[in-house]
């Protein structure tokens, strides 16, 4: 597991690293593209979870027909069974879709016993789990932007920090995300996203290429100051 996710081994003293790499073995499961029933992967209730080794998947949460989405990739931890026995006040639905062939390591009960020899890795996994919340919190800040094209541009640059590849003419995101997926991620409707994407393409800021999405220009941290009056689609929010 540490060979495939070397960042986790970084927390270990160098003298322990080779031994940990040999000890920390985990079973893996490959998941094909498409809808995924996460309950197909059986783990003990007290297991640590699933660690994504490579691939891309999306978790959608819906309430009353509206969905939020979270994109997950290598290094992310999942615990799909977690919380299912609780009865939350709000009725929500959850679904998973694998967007690119994905491999996950099963961090089961036996694996957690192995980690008792390497507490730094256990701590690293807890920190990994917190990364998901941090990314979602940035997503929440993004959806506060009133203009959908601004949200999309911010989302793309946020994803570029993790998955972007720099080349001479900009940063490429190789993941192919449909407008419907993007709509869930920026809390907008699909047609609004399509309009906004066309606007971004016309402005040369985000373009679809054979390789993926090409981002040009600077990240939009200060976009509001720079382009306060730029026209473009805005999401309809009746009560706002």
């Amino acid at each position, binding site marked *: 597991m540490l060979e495939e996710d070397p960042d986790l081994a970084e927390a270990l003293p160098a003298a322990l690293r080779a031994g940990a790499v040999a000890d920390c073995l985990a079973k893996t499961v490959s998941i094909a593209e498409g809808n995924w029933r996460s309950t197909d992967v059986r783990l003990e209730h007290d297991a640590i979870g699933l660690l994504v080794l490579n691939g891309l998947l999306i978790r959608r*949460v819906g309430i*009353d027909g509206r969905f939020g989405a979270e994109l997950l990739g290598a290094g992310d931890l999942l615990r799909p069974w977690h919380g299912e026995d609780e009865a939350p006040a709000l009725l929500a*639905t959850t679904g998973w879709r694998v967007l690119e062939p994905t491999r996950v390591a099963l961090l089961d009960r036996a694996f957690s016993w192995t980690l008792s020899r390497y507490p730094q890795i256990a701590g690293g996994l807890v920190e990994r789990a917190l990364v998901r919340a941090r990314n979602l919190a940035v997503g929440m800040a993004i959806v506060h932007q009133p203009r959908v094209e601004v949200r999309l541009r911010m989302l793309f640059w946020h994803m570029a920090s993790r998955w972007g590849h720099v080349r001479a003419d900009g940063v490429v995101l190789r993941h192919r995300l449909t407008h419907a997926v993007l709509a869930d991620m920026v*809390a907008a409707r699909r047609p609004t996203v399509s309009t906004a994407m066309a606007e971004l393409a016309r402005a040369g800021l985000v373009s679809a290429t054979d390789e993926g999405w090409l981002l040009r220009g600077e990240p939009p941290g200060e976009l509001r100051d720079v382009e306060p009056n730029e026209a473009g689609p805005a999401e309809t929010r009746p009560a706002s």
Partner: protein
Amino acid sequence: MSRNTFSFTEHAQVLLEDPDLAQAVPSARRSEAIRECTAEVLTLHPGEWPSAALPAAGTVTLVLEGLLLRRVGAGGCFGAELLGSGDLLQPWRGAHPADALATSTGWRVLEPTRLALLGPTFTRRLARYPQLTGALVGRALDRSRQLAINMAIVHQPRVDTRLHMLLWQLAGRWGRVRPDGVVVPLRLTHSLLAELVAARRPTVSRALALLAEGRRALPIEGGWLLCGVPPGELLALAPVAARAQPRGEEPAAPAGRTEHGDGARQAHRRPPLADRRPERPAANAYASGGERAVRSR
């Protein structure tokens, strides 16, 4: 708001203060784990909290009690996350230097708060009880679960619907049932609610007035009183898309299924009201004789 003063006041037996966490340890070893798993405690007073100034970089902390707000800003707009006992935080970890998108993070302590610092010493003790690693990972993922629900809430076109849903979401964690409804004992300003539902403060004020008029959420001393049923219940009661489509929006997916078809599943499906609480009037799924927590962590 004043800057926070903080102090390291004590050591706490973490599993004694967070008994749900202790449940992960087999009963034969629980007492020993409670005794061993101690951590230094940081006490915070209400106010802005300059967490980056503290000399504990990288430490994961567990909220033992209190209430905090984490704000993340991008391009001048802020999202917010409410955190309380049982939540794990890494307050000293801000934006990553490699992040392309400039974001800012701020913390505000809303109620007196105690944080257990789960540093390297704690992690070494923790390793003797491997079940706790999974439990702590679960706790950390709880935050992303709540935020994902929040993301679905802000997707609702109407701000009053978002607020109604948000208050019920908060009720799921902090709510207390009493005969006339569910009390959410949180003092949340309209500005704070605006950040939680991605709306502007004046819009939130108007939407809250609408909720009060409809007797769906009433401001009370020290919090909010929710009457009636949670808004998502509409789906359970009318699973076929026979209900009215609000404001010409696209049709909603039927209850229990997402647009992803067969791969989708219903995670938090609740039984119909009548099955769940047959002794209660359907008007309020949570009404009962005495006050009690809706759900403890």
